[in-house]
């Protein structure tokens, strides 16, 4: 038995909680581990902020969090997206409290009317003579709202690294960007637009349980038997004519009952730095009915070969470490926003494929509400599992959580690999990256400032 680590954790000791085939339950429950994650892991990695279509016009802003840090995504006067800490440099008041809006050419703090350009630079302070000779201009506070360390707009998706220095966007994501590319390429115009507000679903569990579940292919046929299994049964009783297209809802929900073999054969791919996806060869999204006119539009835009290649890729869930998942084939993104060691807000966004038929978006909207809403029959059982796990982990009789399925000694996470679709390798990959990014990473600056 490995020795049991004891709190309170520091950056040096926290990595004792991770072993190749198991992780200590404190990674899900301990407040100090959570604090270290927020301070280091979420600062050293590239974390999803929002989509640029949420802030299409100059002065448009949207408020969210990077880890536990309140931030504003704003379209600056020069058309670029800036990500600023949502805090007045004066007293700390949140500059924007609504979820979205337009601030015009500048932000104005509602408390003392300090104002800032939309890139954060201080614009004006009322009765400024009161600061003459006080040295305010020498302080960080006197410069304005603070921007995050680095921002990257990748094909409309905004990511931020809080740390001023660290791994570059390209080095962090590497070839995993192929999943985002595929999602965007599915628009004949090569562009996505956010479609309405996200579902917001509160989970009383640690954020990592949600991320792990995205590539957990041994749970759907068990946890979701009550919804997907019952759906299949009701449908069989309906005597649906074979030549009539299945209802869209059945196409979406029935594949959750696919047998183990289906998930084994779909494959899992892992990339360095904790990214990975299920559905290398096929997925629960592979057999959706064709939407009339769409393929023709894609051929027109890309040529037949490329169009077939784009639409032939049916990745199931792609995890971008640390805390989002995307579904390329249906243009969905789920953001697992940590609110505490045992509290996570899940925001599930959907996007419209620009220039594609509306039916595709209708199917995506249906998927989002059937599977990921707080009112979803599928989501209910997922949340039940997470919350039971969060409570069960209190049991002192056993302190380690097992992630050993299809484990092989000496696994190398620094190279891309494709394996059996039921492996827990992607979970191990995430924890490998978790250890790495708890520590500051050397700068590998590339073309981060671009775009």
């Amino acid at each position, binding site marked *: 038995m490995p020795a049991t680590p004891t709190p309170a954790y520091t950056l040096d000791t926290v990595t004792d909680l991770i072993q190749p085939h198991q992780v200590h339950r404190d990674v899900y429950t301990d407040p100090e581990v959570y604090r270290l994650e927020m301070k280091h892991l979420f600062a050293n990695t590239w974390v999803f902020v929002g989509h640029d279509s949420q802030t299409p016009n100059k002065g448009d802003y949207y408020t969210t969090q990077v880890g536990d840090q309140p931030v504003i995504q704003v379209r600056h006067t020069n058309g670029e997206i800036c990500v600023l800490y949502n805090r007045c440099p004066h007293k700390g008041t949140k500059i924007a409290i609504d*979820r979205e809006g337009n601030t015009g050419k500048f932000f104005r703090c509602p408390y003392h009317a300090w104002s800032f350009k939309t890139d954060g630079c201080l614009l004006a302070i009322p009765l400024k003579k009161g600061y003459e000779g006080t040295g305010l201009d020498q302080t960080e506070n006197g410069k304005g709202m603070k921007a995050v360390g680095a921002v990257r707009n990748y094909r409309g998706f905004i990511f931020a690294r809080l740390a001023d220095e660290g791994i570059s966007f390209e080095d962090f994501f590497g070839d995993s960007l192929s999943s985002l590319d595929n999602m965007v390429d599915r628009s004949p115009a090569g562009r996505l637009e956010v*479609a*309405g*507000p*996200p*579902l*917001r*679903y*509160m*989970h*009383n569990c640690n954020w990592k349980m949600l991320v792990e579940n995205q590539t957990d292919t041994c749970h759907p046929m068990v*946890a979701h*038997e*009550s*919804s997907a*299994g*019952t*759906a299949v049964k*009701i*449908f069989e009783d*309906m005597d649906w004519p074979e030549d009539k297209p299945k*209802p869209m*809802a*059945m196409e979406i929900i029935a594949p959750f009952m696919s047998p183990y073999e289906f998930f084994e054969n779909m494959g899992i791919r892992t990339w360095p730095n904790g990214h990975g996806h299920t559905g290398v060869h096929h997925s629960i999204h592979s057999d959706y009915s064709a939407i009339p006119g769409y393929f023709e539009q894609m051929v027109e835009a890309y040529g037949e070969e490329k169009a077939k290649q784009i639409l032939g890729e049916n990745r199931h869930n792609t995890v971008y470490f640390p805390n989002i998942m995307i579904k390329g084939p249906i243009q969905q993104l789920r953001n697992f926003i940590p609110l505490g060691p045992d509290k996570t*807000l899940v925001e*599930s966004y*959907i996007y*419209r494929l620009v220039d594609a038929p*509306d039916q595709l*978006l*209708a199917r995506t*909207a*249906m998927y*989002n*509400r*059937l599977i990921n*809403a*707080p*009112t979803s*029959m599928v*989501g*209910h*059982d997922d*949340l*039940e*599992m997470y919350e039971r796990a969060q409570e069960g982990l209190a049991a002192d009789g056993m302190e380690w959580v097992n992630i050993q399925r299809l484990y092989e000694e000496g696994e190398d996470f620094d190279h891309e690999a494709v394996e059996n679709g039921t492996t827990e390798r992607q979970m191990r990959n995430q924890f490998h990256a978790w250890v790495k990014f708890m520590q500051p990473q050397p700068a590998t600056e590339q073309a981060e400032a671009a775009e």
Partner: protein
Amino acid sequence: MSFPSRDDLIDFIYDEARMLDEGRYDEWLDLWMPEGVYWMPLDYRQTDPDLVTSLLHEDQFMLRLRVERLNGARTFSQKPKSRCHHVIQRPFVDVMDSDANRYVTNTNMHYVETRLDDQFLLAITATHELTVVEGKIRIANKRVDLLNSDAAFGNIQLLP
């Protein structure tokens, strides 16, 4: 006096709420027209049910699935089962068009759902489109607006 009267419509809304509270779901499903949709928007004053996300937008197949799932042996999130309670304000009858066989009511309710030690309250407005078939009032469509539809929720497992 011809059927339905204003009181018949109002009684129907009360009866439906009671069915849901008492878990008489099979009876409740029988209230619906075959093409009826239960819609719970996600956005305040949402107008589009199809191209943005809703909390619920379910036809009779999905509602039947929902009801059967609640009674399933392996419905883990319903072990133990949730219970619910509607307190309803007297419905407004907004449309009373017997020529078109179309009636619309608007009802404010407080909906309470509970399971284990947790209980939550939702303030809702239900809009019922009703019609009469063979002397019985039926639900053609039902829209349920949550006052805080844009808030983050845990599981809402029954039918507000």
